[in-house]
């Protein structure tokens, strides 16, 4: 059995077709796109083509609304810092408690500088309360930044509707769509979304390339100033090979978007059903009815995620966990805490995320080993005895300290 990769929300394999279009930009067309000689001849055209391929995937009106950046993180930072810089009188930001650190850390830093950050809570299924959101919107808000889909649970937020509300209140709207682009169909020109971040390595293009979509007319201040690249909105010589690769990846993603929402989803559903039927005391986290088609996040109670991952790894299966120990912090993932998942379960969450490269037979392999792995670890757990959890686990085993 060859290794099974079910960690596609972390990063993806680069598609062969993507590598193929990139190679000439390393070996032949390696000129600086700003230069006037034959080594740079086709480069500007290559970039233009890539811009159009991205445009087609996200459905924006103009290809000049695409700004290439170095990653999703840079796009996120650029969006938020631009909004506050361009509107110095507005001192509030609205976001959610479950954003990626690429948003939350920027907000934390701005909070230190005197900004008021509204971090909207979520319910047990990871959903936002839109009435509370409406009440937060005001002319004091510089920007709303809400992710399109959550990287841990796959839960989708109603960003199109939220952008309408923000727009009606005269507030700029940004969405971190790093997990959504390529998995969900989108037509940005029909929305009021002002800015959107995406990252190449989540859709089978290389790491270190991203995009900030900037709606024409949105007030903007660059993060990196320098040359005239990207119309002065993001200086720095273009990462030509990766841009061209990302373009190709977007073209492929558009082609496969239906496959993603049927075949890939079918694999996810089968794995999820198989696990929850075979293994007692586990449950799916997030909004079951409104999720990315490729993601399932399952909490295995009374055991810890890193241990599960190590045993999965030994069985040749790659997944990831929201457990504290995988990140080096002592707290389980902020997403699990925000959803109020009990600690006995939050530490044992495992995320399986699929791509079009996975096969149904791999699902069966995982289903074969998973019950054994969970049983092995439960045998070691002080919260478990025989066939079930000890009665009142939190009281029966209440160790000293903290």
């Amino acid at each position, binding site marked *: 059995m060859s290794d099974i990769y079910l960690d596609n929300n972390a990063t993806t394999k680069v598609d062969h077709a993507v590598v193929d279009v990139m190679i000439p930009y390393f070996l032949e067309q390696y000129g600086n796109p700003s230069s006037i000689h034959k080594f740079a001849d086709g480069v500007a055209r290559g970039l233009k083509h890539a811009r159009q391929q991205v445009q087609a995937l996200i459905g924006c009106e103009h290809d000049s609304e695409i700004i290439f950046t170095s990653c999703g993180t840079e796009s996120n930072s650029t969006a938020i810092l631009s909004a506050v810089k361009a509107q110095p009188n507005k001192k509030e930001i609205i976001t959610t408690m479950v954003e990626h650190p690429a948003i939350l850390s920027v907000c934390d830093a701005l909070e230190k500088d005197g900004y008021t950050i509204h971090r909207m809570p979520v319910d047990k299924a990871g959903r936002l309360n839109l009435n509370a959101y409406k009440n937060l919107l005001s002319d004091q808000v510089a920007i709303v930044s809400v992710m399109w889909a959550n990287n841990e649970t796959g839960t989708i937020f109603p960003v199109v509707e939220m952008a309408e509300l923000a727009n009606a209140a005269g507030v700029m709207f940004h969405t971190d769509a790093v997990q959504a682009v390529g998995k969900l169909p989108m037509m940005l020109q029909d929305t009021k979304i002002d800015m959107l971040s995406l990252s190449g390595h989540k859709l089978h293009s290389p790491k270190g390339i991203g995009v900030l979509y900037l709606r024409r007319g949105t007030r903007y201040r660059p993060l990196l100033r320098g040359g005239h690249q990207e119309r002065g909105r993001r200086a720095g010589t273009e990462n030509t090979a990766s841009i061209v690769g990302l373009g190709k990846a977007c073209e492929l993603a558009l082609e496969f978007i239906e496959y993603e929402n049927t075949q890939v989803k079918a694999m996810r559903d089968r794995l999820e059903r198989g696990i929850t039927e075979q293994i007692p005391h586990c449950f799916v986290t997030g909004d079951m009815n409104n999720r990315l088609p490729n993601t399932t996040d399952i909490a295995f109670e009374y055991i810890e*995620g890193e241990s599960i991952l*190590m045993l999965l790894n030994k069985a040749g299966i790659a997944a990831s966990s929201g457990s504290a120990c995988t990140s080096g912090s002592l707290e389980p993932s902020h997403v699990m805490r925000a959803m109020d998942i009990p600690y006995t379960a939050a530490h044992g969450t495992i995320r399986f995320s699929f791509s079009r490269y996975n096969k149904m037979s791999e699902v069966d392999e995982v289903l074969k080993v998973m019950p054994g792995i969970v049983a092995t670890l439960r045998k070691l757990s002080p919260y478990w005895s025989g066939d079930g959890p000890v009665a009142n686990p939190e009281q029966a085993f209440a160790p000293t300290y903290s």
Partner: protein
Amino acid sequence: MWDYSDKVKEHFFNPKNAGAVVDANATGEVGSISCGDALRLTLKVDDDSEIILEAGFQTFGCGSAIASSSVLTEIIKGMTLDEAAKVTNQDIADQLEGLPPEKMHCSVMGREALQAAIANYRGEVWKDDHEEGALICKCFAIDAVMIEEMVWANKLRTVEDVTNFTKAGGGCASCHEDIEAILEKVLAEKGEKFDPTAAPVVAPVKAAVAKAPLTNLQRIKKIEQVLESLRPALMADGGDVELVEVIGNTAYVNMTGACNGCQMAAMTIAGIQQRLMEVLGEFIKVVPATEMSKLVSIEVA
């Protein structure tokens, strides 16, 4: 994935002594579900000899927590309780051929479970004296609680102070922003303001730097004072330092406990030397006492 040693993997994949000892007469339970680690250690102790006949563990935790528990049971089987009481978290980490700094707390949890089990056997109540916070300095495995306590206790005001008292920040320096945040917070609680340009806290002895060259007796006294001030930081790591002899400008010290033989010992000694030079205002060389015998034999020869 963590860079675990083969030993950690071995104990994780094939844990020794998993499960509770059936007729145990000592139990230690430590950890915290909110931190994602919890351990119950059960022992069967021979009442006459106080020898640990059997040890078993049940652990909720990551790979290194399970490995630490497993290796702990192997270490203590056959020991008397008095011997077992001396097992440190460093012993556990050493047996595992090292743990990543983020995971050292797993070995601490092992030691604490052991202490709790021994106390339980003796009818005492074990009290944890150590609260764990988020890991701040990865170079020296120092957490936020430790830094906060030091800032409170010693009225520290700058990152440099924190480094002098805890070692945190003395390596790659990438944790300085986090240390500043702790200083800001604690100083705000005390009604002060953090000023990155403030002069470092002057160690009380420093004010008394003598203009005239120190006599050997003065020098020894001052060295003792400095070592005293550094002791809390060392003890927090389970180590200690002892002054053995001063010959001229060379201070011979014994590093004990966790500091002894630990990979950080050389760094610690360099830190002590730096501190001594600052306070005494003269060149001081710090040398492990083990080097002294070599020196003496050379002199004799």
